[in-house]
């Protein structure tokens, strides 16, 4: 690495620092500014011109959002619950369905395996808006509109091809000898899947889980169409309505946004390594 840097001139040190500052400011500015507003007093939010550094740190906005007797407490907590149910439900269902399929595609040669894998790979490229109307009709006809399981099923279908792809590319890299040894000891395929492949594939499983969770936590168009009633709408659908209903209350909007941002930010900070491998497998599909 150091060797091919020697072609750089003396300017490189300065350029490196300037680029670094730009990258950090660009990446964090919207999050920083949202946090400043969320913890600011109403007067400081309206301050013009705005002060770059926080002038006050208080919890008034969170109180208006979540506190006892607040107008938004009920809908917000319900949407938070829906977001958690839908994202977790989608992640669990997706992994449960994707893991056996990924194992079969990686390890077994069976009639039609190549054709099925090709079809699933092609569905990676199917955009959400192309399937939105027929799925809306299907959900209406079967009474699954505005139900948690209906949204979870649609979100699962959207996440499944990528999850299969991520898991399959992990399993392919694992040594086959271990499986053979377990088989000789008389373990069945499901035992092999559970006690040998499972632990080995854990990093891939975490990568697929993080990518699936983040995609369903952030999904908007799907819940906007299939879960837009007060009982099932997730945060991504509720928060934009605040911009209309409480258009001048930036404090309330930013407090709500900050709550919705917390789980993804924690996941990225804690599981960065897995997330990156998942992202990379997804992008180079």
């Amino acid at each position, binding site marked *: 690495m150091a060797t091919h840097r020697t072609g750089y001139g003396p300017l490189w040190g300065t350029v490196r620092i300037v680029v670094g500052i730009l990258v950090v400011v660009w990446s964090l500015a*919207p999050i920083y500014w949202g946090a400043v507003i969320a913890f600011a007093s109403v007067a400081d939010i309206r301050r013009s011109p705005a002060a770059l550094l926080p002038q006050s740190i208080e919890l008034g906005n969170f109180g208006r959002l979540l506190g006892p007797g607040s107008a938004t407490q009920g809908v917000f907590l319900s949407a938070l619950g829906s977001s958690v149910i839908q994202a977790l439900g989608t992640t669990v269902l997706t992994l449960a369905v994707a893991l056996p399929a990924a194992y079969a595609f990686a390890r077994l040669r069976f009639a039609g395996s190549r054709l099925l894998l090709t079809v699933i790979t092609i569905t990676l490229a199917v955009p959400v808006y192309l399937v939105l109307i027929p799925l809306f009709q299907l959900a209406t006809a079967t009474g699954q509109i505005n139900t948690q399981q209906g949204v979870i099923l649609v979100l699962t279908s959207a996440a499944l091809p990528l999850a299969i792809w991520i898991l399959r590319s992990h399993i392919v890299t694992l040594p086959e000898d271990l499986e053979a040894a377990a088989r000789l000891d008389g373990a069945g395929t499901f035992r092999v899947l559970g006690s040998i492949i499972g632990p080995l594939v854990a990093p891939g499983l975490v990568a697929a889980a993080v990518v699936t969770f983040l995609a369903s936590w952030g999904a*908007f168009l799907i819940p906007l169409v299939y879960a837009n009633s007060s009982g099932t709408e997730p945060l991504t659908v509720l928060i934009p309505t605040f911009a209309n209903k409480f258009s001048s209350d930036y404090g309330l909007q930013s407090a709500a946004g900050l709550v919705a941002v917390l789980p993804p930010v924690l996941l990225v900070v804690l599981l960065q390594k897995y997330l990156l491998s998942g992202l990379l497998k997804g992008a180079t599909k």
Partner: protein
Amino acid sequence: MRADRAALLPAARGPARPSPRPGRSAARRRANRLGLALVAPAFAVIAVLVLYPTISSVVGSFQRYELTDPNRAFSGLRNYTAVLSDDTFQQALLNTGGYFVVITLAVLLMGLGTALWLQSLKGAWRAIALTVIVLPWSIPGTVAGVLWSFILNPTGSGLLNSVLKSVGLIGSYQAWLNKPIAGIVVIGLTVAWSAVPLGVVVLLAGLEGIPREIYEQSLVDGADRLRQFGSITLPLLRPALAIVLLNGAVLAIGLFDQVYVLVGLDPDKITIAGSMYLYAFRDFNFGFGFAASVVATAITAAISLVYLRLVYREEEY
């Protein structure tokens, strides 16, 4: 690929061929059953919730189909001609082109710049920098829209307005999102904020994949950094660049959430995906919605083919 499939299909469909060793064919049948059983749940979900609706959309785009009149009659290309000559759709097409250019340029330049910068960092520094860089990708599109709306606030309490005015770049506070062209550029940049991280990750992996010996050899041969970048880095990075470009196109054409939050369903700002939503879920004209979504998908597919051709043709020599 096609030859493989041809070889597989008869075996899957035709009667089992007599085998000289009955034990082997029984084992093969067992493998077939097991494989299909493991894949069946996933394939069922994809068949019902992806393949069926895809076909249904394409078929529906050739039918007259409104919510008020559930009688779906074949109407040829009428949905397509109506949608393609509709002002809303034409404007959406134009907007999408604008987003496409802004997002592609931003993701390419910022992604490449950031990836090259990251390559100069090592160990813990690189891990910390990567975490910071990936953060925007993880934030839901609608929440990203809300966060950016505080920065783009048309009054003096907006971050962008107060910074630009204090350094003297603007004389009065600007309503950035209401401007016709600047609005598209600004929204495109907020989308790039979410999209650059993926570009950085892909390009960094591409850069790391270039064998160091090539650089060392070219240094011996007397090439400077700029020459190296032009004659080694860029050509060898072409597959990664194609992925980044493709993601930009997919994103621009399917863009919905950030625009929805920042300016609503404003016809001057929506993309083709947005026009599809208007036709289907505001006007309840599903036929138009189908046609718009098929056109959007076809454009995406065409752009992908052009990119792939560019990558593979150039790689041949």
